[in-house]
């Protein structure tokens, strides 16, 4: 069992963490016709927006209530009202998703109260979907913002259902954590459909941020799950939640509609996918399609081929809790040693990470510990690039943001196939690093004058 500790530093150096309001906006981006709105100063939105644009290389909708110094002190009712009206009139969205920020939380704006007043004052907004989530910057992290926002979407947007009402057994709600990419969601959609199931993803980033070229240009999201479809999620036979962060949303769904849920904390690795596929077979009443039997064989073979390179590696990983748990567990199962684990926020999965200690800290901690513990594989998001170049060890980019490489939206980790591709990528990194930096020379094993053995390069 890992001990979870928190860094005692007054100064965070090279943050791993990002703020929870933009995690909330990220969740709204998986809804069709959505405009995420941050209630804060314009910088709160513009920093988040830039980060998303750099990650996805797509136009990303996101707006601000543009709080000035004066408005911040006097309260933001007028700014929220104007922002909603402007967005409603100019971009004709299907939903506006509002997250608070540090600025407006420090003042203590009652945004739920604002929204009630705005609905009264503007009858056209009476039934218009407005979802508000409190997400102060000075608490929690990106993943928490997503977690709270999706749970709130369920509470506000899903219609309650009568106890005896008929259910569509083939319908399955999928609540994915923010650590899954649009590519992961597409993979899951294919898998579920191959079992004859009809999935509804909430949120569905694969519909909006998979890079497709839209039929119609809109200033809002260009795809994702519609508010109408969310409303009917209570008719589904099951809810599948992916990542521990999705438990609150799944529980809210069950409470509101009686749809039972199954939480998969991981979908990377052989056994997690065995459990997942067995579950789909069970709820669909169908045998596992031949395709997945073949894919399982391919993954098994990939594990055989790559364990030579991954086994024994000392991993330093920095990621949000669910991604950290998923990837580090898979690599542990492949024979790697999880030597350093740094994360951003508390989570029940952390104590089950296969390591001694999980540190809630920053990338300086990750870099220093990786150096001290002689790690030879680094996994974190793109902000780890400076640490990687100083440590001179293979660096695999995972998580958000990934702004210095292309194709972030399509990187896979779920399913037999996603795991297969991931272990190949990791093993190839190790091989390339060995070829570039650890070639033996005639002097590699020569003893020095003092009779001491020169430390050989790593030749795994």
């Amino acid at each position: 069992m890992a001990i979870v500790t928190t860094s005692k530093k007054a100064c965070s150096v090279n943050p791993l963490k990002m703020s929870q309001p933009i995690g909330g906006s990220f969740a709204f981006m998986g809804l069709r016709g959505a405009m995420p709105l941050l209630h804060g100063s314009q910088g709160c939105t513009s920093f988040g927006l830039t980060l998303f644009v750099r990650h996805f290389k797509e136009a990303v909708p996101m707006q601000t209530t543009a709080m000035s110094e004066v408005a911040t002190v006097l309260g933001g009712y007028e700014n929220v009202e104007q922002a909603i009206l402007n967005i409603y009139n100019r971009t004709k969205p299907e939903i506006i998703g509002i997250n608070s920020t540090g600025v407006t939380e420090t003042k203590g704006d009652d945004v739920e109260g604002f929204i009630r007043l705005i609905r009264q004052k503007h009858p056209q907004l009476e039934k218009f979907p407005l979802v508000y989530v409190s997400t102060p910057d000075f608490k929690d992290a990106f993943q928490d913002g997503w977690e709270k926002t999706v749970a709130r979407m369920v509470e506000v947007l899903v219609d309650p259902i009568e106890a005896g009402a008929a259910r569509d057994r083939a319908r399955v709600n999928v609540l994915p954590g923010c650590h899954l990419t649009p590519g992961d969601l597409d993979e899951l959609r294919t898998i579920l459909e191959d079992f004859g199931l009809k999935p509804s993803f909430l949120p569905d980033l694969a519909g909006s941020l998979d890079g497709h070229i839209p039929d119609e240009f809109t200033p809002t999201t260009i795809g994702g799950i519609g508010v109408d479809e969310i409303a009917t999620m209570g008719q589904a036979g099951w809810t599948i939640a992916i990542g521990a962060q999705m438990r609150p949303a799944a529980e809210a769904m069950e409470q509101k509609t009686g749809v039972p849920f199954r939480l998969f904390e991981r979908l990377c690795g052989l056994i997690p996918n065995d459990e997942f596929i067995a579950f789909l077979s069970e709820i669909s009443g169908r045998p596992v399609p031949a395709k997945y039997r073949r894919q399982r064989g391919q993954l098994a073979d990939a594990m055989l081929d790559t364990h030579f390179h991954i086994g024994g590696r000392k991993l330093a990983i920095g990621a949000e809790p669910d991604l950290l748990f998923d990837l580090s567990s898979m690599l542990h199962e492949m024979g790697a040693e999880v030597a350093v684990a740094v994360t951003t926020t508390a989570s029940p999965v952390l104590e089950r990470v296969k390591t001694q200690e999980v540190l809630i800290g920053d990338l300086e901690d990750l870099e220093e510990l990786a150096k001290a513990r002689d790690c030879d594989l680094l996994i974190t998001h793109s902000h780890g690039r400076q640490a990687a170049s100083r440590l001179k060890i293979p660096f695999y980019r995972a998580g958000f943001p990934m702004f210095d490489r292309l194709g972030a939206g399509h990187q896979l980790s779920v399913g037999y196939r996603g795991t297969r591709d991931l272990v190949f990528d990791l093993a190839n990194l190790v091989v390339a690093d060995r070829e570039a930096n650890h070639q033996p020379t005639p002097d590699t094993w020569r003893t020095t004058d003092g009779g001491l053995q020169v430390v050989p390069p790593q030749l795994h």
Partner: protein
Amino acid sequence: MSSLSATIQDVFNEPGCGKNANKTEAERKKGCTKQLQPGGAAGGCAFDGAKIALQPFTDVAHLVHGPIACEGNSWDNRGSASSGSDLWRRSFTTDMNETDIVFGGEKRLYKAIKEVIEKYDPPAIFVYQTCVPAMIGDDINAVCKAAATKFGKPVIPVNSPGFVGPKNLGNKLAGEALLEHVIGTEEPDYTTPYDINIIGEYNLSGEFWQIKPLLDELGIRILSCISGDGKYRELAYSHRAKAAMMVCSKAMINVARKMEERYGIPYFEGSFYGIQDSSDSLREIARLLIERGAPAELMDRTEAVIAREEAKAWAAIERFKPRFKDKKVLLITGGVKSWSVVAALQEAGLEIVGTSVKKSTKEDKERIKELMGQDAHMIEDMTPREMYKMLKDARADIMLSGGKSQFVALKAAMPWLDINQERCHGYMGYIGMVKLMEEIEKALYNPMWAHLRRPAPWDDAGVNWQTKAMAQMDAQAAEIAADPALAEAARRAKKICFCKTVDLGSIEDAIAAHGLSTVDGVKDHTNASGGCGACKGRIEDILAAQPAPVLQAAE
């Protein structure tokens, strides 16, 4: 807070700013900031602006006092290049939590400064204020002063919390911090008659190194670059420069002007984008240095270098002429620093659409500036569909613009090139202009476009989204044409002033109601042209088109 608001007022009063001349006393007080529209705003905050302006100082630790959003969401996002320290790329933040909000964050900030000094020992620390600590009353000036005394190291407060205004205000507040706390605090080991400051240059993608070898060759020493590839000590003794070049006027005009006022360092506003501008800037540097005592032969050597470099650049551009024959460029940006980019594009044989100007007389220069200025605003305001139609209507072969419009251009299967700050290639000086031509050629002639424009096998040819979008726009146009009431509404809805969001109808109504006859009159009643002023010409046209009797009757 009072000193911050005084500083902001001071910045708003900047006499060196051309736009200020356009304003009344009352308007000047309000500042250069266009009122941000909730739900319709884009762009960074004042903190962002301050950080952008100062972060290129490479050996300084930049410490952000605030919750995680301000730094955690934004660090390592600029492409400035350093020839030395990489400290500037590391990120330092107090990552304030709930307890700090309740009890105040000053202690944490002080401890953070201590930790940074102990671990990284930088020559100086810049401490950035953000909204939340400003709201709860954290006094960063006092903390910085105490820390500087205690640790014997410059700890510079940069008081520019996000909510005081937009990015360009932050640029200037950053400049004020340098003027107040840094510039003039140290002395250089030696000076030469060839010492200059470069102000407002960030060395993005290392592009300043495309011009620096020429300065080196001429023996011109960059005493301090504010701030690209800059070092703290150079900044501290920058007051000993003989002359200065201000590269990005918007960002740091207050620094250039106040250094002239305080230290007698003359400056000029110039640019190294484009061949002509590069030559002009080199000449101007030489002229100012000679004025300040450098030997007159500097000008001869400068002219020789200019002649050589221009000849090389034009010869290199010659090669592109056959490739660019009959190719049209749609040039849209507020970010092009210089009209001479236009001149170079035209020289290479490209036709510029969207601007109707030919060559580089002074009037043309003003005209291009104006056209590009207003188009930049229009673009920000356009829906992507309208932008697509514009590309289509212009029959352009390539679009050159800032980052914002890129996804629309690319998704329209339109070759596109980034000429704004976020780009990854340097386009500075003579070499840079040739590089720009190379990039245009690569984009234009990529065989991929033809593949992308083919319909999918399951689509009827011509029933892709592009044609659908065009059909919809055409249908709308037809509907409007058929219905006089609609047509009138559409005509009146035409946006005239993009800064203040004023449409034609409102302006016509104001003219009719108050019998206005001048642009200033229109501005007083509708606010139109109260922003960047680029729409003045359009308002003049509207005034001219009004039936004369209306005007007379009212006057």
